C-alpha cells in the first residue's frame, strides 16, 4: 500500500512539476517577446508544442543508446524531483527525501547531462558532440560555486539533508537567504549556468550548433526532453526555494517563490548575448567562486 501511495504521489508530483515547468517556460517566451517589443506566443504555447511533438506519427532511431539518452535525462529530472520536498509538510506530495541527501541530489542532477550526452553521441551528428563538450565544460564551471554554496550551508547548519536545512529555517524563523547570504549569491550565480539561458546557452546555441545535443531528435524524443527540461526547471527552482527561502507551506507560496527565483536567470538572460565556452567557464570561476569562498569563510566564522 505504501508503495502504491508513493507511486500515486509521484505521479501527482510529476504532473505538477510538468505543468508548472511548462507554464514558466511559456511565460519566459512571453517575457522575452515583450522585451523585444513583440506580442509573443500565449503562455500555454509550450503545452501546444509538447503535444504536437507527442503526436508526431513517425520517428527515426540510430540505435539503442538513442532511445536511452532521453530516458537517462528523464531519470535525472524525475528522481531529483522525488527527493525534493515540494511542500514543508508532504501532503499530497509524498517523496523520498529522507532516503537521500544533498550530495546524492547533486550527483543525481548532473546525471542527466551525461546520459543525454550519450544519446546525442550515438546520432553521430558532429554538432551534438560539440554541444556536449561545451555543456560538460560549462557544468564543471558552475558546479564549483554551487558545491561551495552547499558546503557552506552544510557546515553552518550541521546537516546535509534538505529537510534538515528547511527545519533550521523554520526553527530560527529566518530564511537562509539572510542567514547565509553569500551562499545564496554563489548559488544563484551558479543557477544562471544551470538554467542554460543566455549568456550561457552555449550548449544549444541554435545559430551555431543547430541546437546541439537535440539536433537529431524530433517527435517523441524531443517531447521527452522537453518535459524533462520543464520538470528539471521546477526541480531546481523548488530546491532553491527549499534551501534559501524556507520552503513553502502551500502551493501558492511555492509558485510565487519559484516564479521570483525563475525571473533571475530569465531577466539576466534576455539582455545578454552569448559567451564563448571558455569565457563561460572562467566566468563561473571568477566572482561566483569568490562568493563561494566568502560563504564558506562566513559559515566557519559563524559556527
Amino acid at each position, binding site marked *: 500500500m505504501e508503495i502504491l501511495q508513493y507511486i500515486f504521489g509521484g505521479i501527482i508530483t510529476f504532473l505538477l512539476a510538468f505543468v508548472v515547468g511548462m507554464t514558466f517556460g511559456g511565460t519566459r517566451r512571453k517575457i522575452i517577446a515583450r522585451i523585444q517589443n513583440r506580442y509573443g506566443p500565449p503562455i500555454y504555447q509550450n503545452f501546444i508544442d509538447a503535444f504536437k511533438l507527442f503526436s508526431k506519427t513517425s520517428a527515426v532511431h540510430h540505435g539503442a543508446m538513442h532511445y536511452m539518452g532521453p530516458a537517462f535525462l528523464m531519470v535525472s529530472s524525475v528522481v531529483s524531483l522525488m527527493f525534493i520536498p515540494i511542500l514543508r509538510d508532504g501532503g499530497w506530495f509524498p517523496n523520498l527525501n529522507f532516503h537521500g541527501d544533498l550530495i546524492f541530489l547533486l550527483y543525481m542532477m548532473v546525471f542527466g547531462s551525461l546520459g543525454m550526452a550519450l544519446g546525442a553521441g550515438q546520432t553521430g551528428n558532429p554538432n551534438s558532440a560539440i554541444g556536449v563538450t561545451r555543456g560538460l565544460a560549462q557544468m564543471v564551471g558552475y558546479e564549483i560555486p554551487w558545491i561551495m554554496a552547499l558546503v557552506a550551508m552544510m557546515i553552518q547548519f550541521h546537516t546535509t539533508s534538505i529537510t534538515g536545512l528547511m527545519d533550521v529555517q523554520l526553527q530560527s524563523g529566518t530564511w537562509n537567504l539572510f542567514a547565509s547570504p553569500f551562499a545564496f549569491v554563489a548559488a544563484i550565480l551558479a543557477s544562471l549556468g544551470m538554467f542554460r539561458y543566455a549568456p550561457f546557452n552555449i550548449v544549444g546555441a541554435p545559430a551555431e550548433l543547430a541546437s546541439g545535443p537535440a*539536433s537529431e531528435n524530433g517527435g517523441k524524443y524531443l517531447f521527452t526532453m522537453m518535459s524533462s527540461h520543464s520538470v528539471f526547471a521546477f526541480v531546481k527552482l523548488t530546491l532553491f526555494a527549499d534551501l534559501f527561502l524556507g520552503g513553502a507551506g502551500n502551493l501558492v507560496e511555492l509558485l510565487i517563490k519559484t516564479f521570483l527565483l525563475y525571473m533571475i536567470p530569465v531577466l539576466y538572460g534576455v539582455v545578454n548575448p552569448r559567451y564563448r565556452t571558455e569565457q563561460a567557464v572562467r566566468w563561473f570561476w571568477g566572482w561566483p567562486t569568490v562568493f563561494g569562498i566568502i560563504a564558506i569563510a562566513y559559515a566557519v566564522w559563524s559556527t
Partner: protein
Amino acid sequence: MQNDSRSQKIVDIIQAYARRHSLWILAYGTGCGAIEIPSTMTSRYDAERLGVRGAATPRQADVLLITGYLTVKTLKRVIRVYEQMQSPKYVIGFGSCAINGGMYWDSYNTIKMLDQYIPVDVYISGCMPRPEAVLSGFGKLQDLIKAGVADGPKRYEENFDWYRANQKKIIKNWNFADYNW
C-alpha cells in the same frame, strides 16, 4: 482507444489544434525570399504569436519553407531535407519562382514547378511575398490542417515512384545513398 471512434475524434481534434498552432519552420533559404523570414519573425509581424517558430534541424521541424527559386543542385538538398523531416510535415512554396519558375522560367538549371518533386501544401504568390502574405500563407496552412487536407507525406508515399521518377529525371548525378528513405 484506436477502435473507439468517438474518443479518437476528440484526440484528432486536439491533435489538429496542436499541429496548427505549433508550426516549427525550417527555412530553406534558397532564393531572395529568405530575407522575408526575419521580418516575419521579428517585432513588427511577430509570427511567434501564431505558434510559428524556427527549428534548427529537419528532424525537429514541421514546415519546410522553400523561399524562392530552386536550382537543380539545391533541389537535391531540398529532397533530402524533406525526407528527413518527421511526419506530419508541410511544405510552403514562396513566390512565383517556386510556382512556375517566375523570372527564371527559361533558365536551364532551375526547376519550374516545385510540386512535381515534393508535395506542396501552400503556395504564397508574389515576387517576393511580403510578410503579410507570408502570414496569410501560414493562416491558409492552418486552415488546411484543420480541414485535414494537408497530408503531404501521405501523398508523397502513395505517389513515391512518380516523385522519384521526376526527381531522377532532373537530377543527373543522382547519388542518394540507399540509407535515405
